[in-house]
């Protein structure tokens, strides 16, 4: 819980536009679902830190996995081993692990896979449903082999796994008593929330919102709570400090 410069151990392309960033970081105290705020530049532009989930934790190391989508992640992707990067974190509330006897169904869309790795390590006998745009993106799922988790993939082009959407996989997969853990684009999460509600299973989603502070003070990352959660001045939840993981029932999906 401090802003600190971390040494870069590696920063390698996984697939075109996807990078693994390895950092020296001892005693991070990171739980599944945690994220960090990364200062990509010492300069004034881009000004704000970028939120990135923690992917994997090793002995004295932490690995992030990120896609280059704009100028911040572009700058990050050019950093070299030996340089360092200023990180604030770990931040947020992570996933709540399933109670005994419940199967975890992990659902990821694209980079939404990130917070699920540490979760997958903790929840044995679970299944990962991964929706990727391409075979290249889908290759990230290889990291999950050997975790004792069942992996099912859907790609847009059908180049790997099933051709179609990950939510189609979920429709087939879901059983009473399961707990869904999902992260990915809003459209996907919305659909998953509906599927979960229909199936009557509990569902935790990790949300993304533009963030300035990451620590609950700027009030910039608000999402609307669903009406059963509304209170006089508590109609909004902060994704950074009250999330990024929420019970899908607590979110007003119409206004997201």
């Amino acid at each position: 819980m401090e802003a600190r410069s971390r040494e870069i151990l590696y920063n390698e392309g996984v697939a075109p536009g996807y990078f693994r960033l390895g950092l020296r970081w001892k005693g991070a105290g990171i739980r599944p679902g945690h994220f960090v705020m990364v200062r990509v530049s010492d300069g004034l532009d881009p000004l704000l830190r970028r939120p990135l989930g923690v992917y994997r934790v090793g002995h004295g190391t932490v690995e992030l996995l990120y896609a280059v989508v704009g100028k911040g992640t572009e700058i990050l992707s050019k950093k070299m081993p030996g340089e360092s990067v200023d990180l604030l974190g770990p931040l947020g509330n992570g996933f709540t692990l399933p109670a005994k006897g419940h199967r975890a169904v992990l659902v990821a869309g694209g980079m939404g896979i990130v917070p699920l790795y540490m979760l997958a390590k903790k929840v044995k006998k679970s299944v990962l449903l991964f929706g990727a745009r391409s075979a290249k993106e889908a290759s990230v799922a290889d990291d999950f082999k050997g975790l004792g988790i069942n992996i099912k993939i859907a790609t847009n082009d059908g180049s790997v796994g099933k051709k179609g959407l990950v939510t189609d996989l979920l429709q087939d997969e879901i059983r009473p008593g399961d707990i869904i853990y999902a992260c990915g684009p809003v459209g996907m999460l919305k659909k998953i929330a509906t599927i979960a509600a229909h199936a009557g299973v509990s569902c935790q989603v990790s949300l993304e919102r533009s963030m300035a502070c990451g620590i609950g003070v700027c009030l910039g990352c608000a999402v609307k709570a669903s009406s059963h959660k509304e209170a006089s001045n508590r109609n909004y939840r902060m994704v950074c400090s009250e999330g990024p993981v929420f019970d899908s029932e607590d979110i007003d999906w119409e206004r997201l």
Partner: protein
Amino acid sequence: MGKAIVVKKKAGTAKAGIKKASGALSVEVAGIKFKNPVLTASGTFGYGIEFAPYTDLNLLGGIVVKGLSLRPREGNPGPRIVETPCGMLNAIGLQNVGVDAFIKEKLPLLKKYKTRVIANIFGETIEDYAEVASRLEDAGGVDAIEVNISCPNVKKGGIVFGTDPKEAFKVISKVRSSTGLPVITKLSPNVTDIKVMVRAVEDAGTDAISLINTLTGMVVDVEKRRPVLATATGGLSGPAIRPVAVRMVWQAASVAKTPIIGMGGIMTAKDALEFIIAGASAVQVGTANFVDPDAAAKIVSGIEDYVKRHSTTVRELIGSLKM
């Protein structure tokens, strides 16, 4: 021998320097002594306590808390923020826990730190402002009130208090008469002539003036052809606005009879010194807290280095601009 003496002298000076420096940093604004001129800006530092894990609050000259209203406010729908070149827009919608919850839940924790506590307040009507101010005085533990007048007066068709000298005069007069606490008026930069606003709020009895609040701005999402912010426009802050802020502080200082607290895009001690030299008796650090939660404390130590290096005091620097 001669050399040895010089060395001794230097060491002595250095130590005295450190001692002197703590006094060298102190300033007085609105009758309150601040141990240094660096405060944190409203809305960028929560209720203060959230930053305790990241910085030493005791190092700060003061903390200005998130704007407080009579009743709790839920704020605007999202998106509420968007990054801009060297800055950001926000449209938080003044979300806050309300003055009573602040007094009950936040203030007792904040009071424990050795720093000044300033409560930023706002209202939709003049009466709201006055009531919030008076409750804060009764609560005890608040050193001063900063009145955010960059809000629409709902009773006057939404005209913004801070862009109309008459409305500004009225609201500050009322707050002035509702509390014994020092009153700092926070001005909006979205005006033709800041000097007119300075005179209006001084006539109304303000004890000090702080500026600038955010400049109104907008970002358009060209793919969706919509404003990025749910409220269309928001307030621009960060280093992008610093030149405008320094200019306005300088203009305000040229006519003000009361002390000025400057802000707008301060990221470093050098930036803070621009404001002080241009006429500010103290500064506030805002958006920088998001980039580095320890920014304000670092600025304090950077100012300390500067005053030592120049064998001066912050008080001597205030308004020392040569033309």
